[in-house]
């Protein structure tokens, strides 16, 4: 074990969806980071990355939230989150401020330290000491922001290749949007539905029994569609598999321990 002094100080950006829907993704992220030699903290002053405001054209709110997030993660060597989309949003922060504004420099500094989890493990830490095992055939959906804004493509596949007993069947058009798009899926429900229908057809045709991805928003959308259509395919966030934390039912599957939790 490394000594604490040498360990990377990482602030976990939980993301609202993970916080509310699937905490296990957050814990799996912590587990992975710790096994890769990081000390992980979760600043309690974080909320959302601000994307709903940013993409709705509400610049003032985006700025307020950006400042709050910048402050929440002040002092951390790295900011890491289990979402390409939310981390991309952090990368947009500098655009919100004029270059002469001192916040611009702080936003730029945050951008330089903010990473999506699979990219952080692979590109920054060069870590691939994955000890997990997963019995199954998986297919991987490349979520848009991670893929196109952060260049997350090979990293998750590199890490998945280390998982024992797991095989990967790529689907057709793994890089095509699933139709989630934040508020898009409720503002334009029928178009969103067509997109997720196309997606579920490709997932199904891949022959995989597990769908993996790096963004919970997209996963909720695809799981919601697959379950509505009656598919038995399990949907999970990649970190659950990488951290060997797959005891919990898959996304949208039954048997959550409701009584104990509430």
């Amino acid at each position, binding site marked *: 074990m490394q000594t604490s002094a040498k360990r990377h100080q990482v602030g976990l950006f939980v993301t609202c969806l993970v916080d*509310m829907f699937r905490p296990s993704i957050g814990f799996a992220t912590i587990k992975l980071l710790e096994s890769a030699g990081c000390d992980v903290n979760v600043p309690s002053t974080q909320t959302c990355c601000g994307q709903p405001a940013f993409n709705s054209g509400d610049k003032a709110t985006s700025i307020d939230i950006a400042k709050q997030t910048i402050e929440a993660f002040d002092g951390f060597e790295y900011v890491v989150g289990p979402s390409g989309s939310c981390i991309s949003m952090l990368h947009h922060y500098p655009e919100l401020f004029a270059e002469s504004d001192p916040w611009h420099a702080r936003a730029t500094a945050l951008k330089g330290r903010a990473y999506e989890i699979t990219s952080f493990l692979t590109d920054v830490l060069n870590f691939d000491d994955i000890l997990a095992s997963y019995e199954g055939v998986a297919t991987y959906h490349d979520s848009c922001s991670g893929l196109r804004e952060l260049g997350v493509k090979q990293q998750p596949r590199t890490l998945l290749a280390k998982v024992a007993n797991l095989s990967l069947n790529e689907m057709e058009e793994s890089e095509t949007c699933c139709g989630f798009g934040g508020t898009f899926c409720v503002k334009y429900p029928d178009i*969103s*539905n067509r997109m997720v229908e196309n997606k579920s057809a490709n997932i199904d045709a891949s022959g995989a029994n597990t769908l993996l991805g790096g963004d919970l928003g997209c996963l909720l959308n695809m799981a919601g569609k697959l379950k509505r259509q009656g598919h038995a395919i399990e949907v999970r966030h990649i970190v659950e598999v990488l951290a060997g934390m797959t005891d919990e039912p898959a996304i949208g599957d*039954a048997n959550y321990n409701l009584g104990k939790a509430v």
Partner: protein
Amino acid sequence: MQIESPAFKENARIALHDVDLQKALGNLKAGFPTKRAAAIERMPEFDSLRDEAMQLKNHIIENLDLYLEQFEENVTKQGGHVHWARTSDDACKTILDICRQVGAKTVTKGKSMVSEEVNLNEYLEANGVTPVETDLGEYILQLRGDHPSHIIAPAIHLNLEDVTEAFHEHHGRPRSSDPAVLMQEAREMLREKFVAADVGITGANFCVAETGSTIIVTNEGNGDLTQTLPKTHIVITSIEKVVPTLEDMTLFQRLLARSATGQEFTVYNTLSTGPRRADDQDGPENFHVVLVDNGRSEMVGSEFQDMLRCIRCSACMNHCPVYGSVGGHSYGWVYPGPMGSVLTPKMIGIEKAGLLPNASTFCGKCESVCPVRIPLPKLMRHWREDEFSKHLSPKAARWGLGGWAFFAKRPSLYRLLSKGANRALRLMAGKKGRVTKLPLAGGWTDWRDMPAPSGKTFMEQYKQQQR
């Protein structure tokens, strides 16, 4: 063309259920994106060409007035005429005037999106001049009283049967469902029109400042017949199409066909410079270039300036999952897809076109294929900002956003909100693990289930663990 952009959602809903349209749209994917990918595979320098093209376009815009002046000077030197049109109306009037000067009854037309933009056909017709579209796709549309749904494949929304019927009805020949026969039919029908026309109108893909030339890029050769046979050739194009030299044009030529159809090069790349020379045996005696502005000059220096780089290749719409689902007509005006979602609000107003820049998941595919690297999602977001600041976005959405923002800016209240929503969803889901009907989120649950939270919120559990 009627503006139907405010009805985007209804249009889209109808389009999604239109079996024939969906079948026709199915041809798109296998066509353009696959071919583009293959062409780029063979051109290892493609991304560097894109970088250079972006920089060159930026340089042109920085010096737009100077290059336009040079272009005008050189067209004039070669005996041609340049006309400036601030608005659609100016453009139509200018063209009608030229037609009247030469006593034109019929004009043949090569494919031009700018002419669609200014609504030229309807204007000419209303004023006693008959326009005849000569591009096969445009010709089919004209017979049907229809409009393009794509900027380079105008009839992409139609199936073979539609063409069969249109030709049978208008040509009075037996029905054929062989595309080759249909094309031959159009070829024969249009030959006479080419010869009879008094004026030929084409667009231009680029205007070369150095030489005063305009260029059209086509596969059919209809544009060439349109501009060579009549006595007068009118080019209708827009001010951002100017490029400095032939070499600079070539940079864009290398990108255009590959991005558009995935061809190595389009069959005919034809430069026109002035009218026919004294000893030429054919070619037009008059050469006019109508340079349309229509809001473009106001984009210079604005947050939409990057859009002036567009070379109208159509790659953005060919790769857009929204366009691929609903087709071009849903957008309700001339320019569909991502490029249209940026341009249309500029040209018809954000009040009418507000739904277009919102109809994007910001998946970024368009930007990733754009040959001149236009940040289309960012520009769509600028429209959303414009809409938001003018209080044009829907009330319910604004209130929802406002309420959410209130919490998002207050971490401890936000914790409570998440906790509450977390409990509510879990209760509603029961043992099933998902919710099938959710008040206020019908948009989601009409089509898919809402997976329930798997336990207490992360923050709650984390706090417990830390204790």
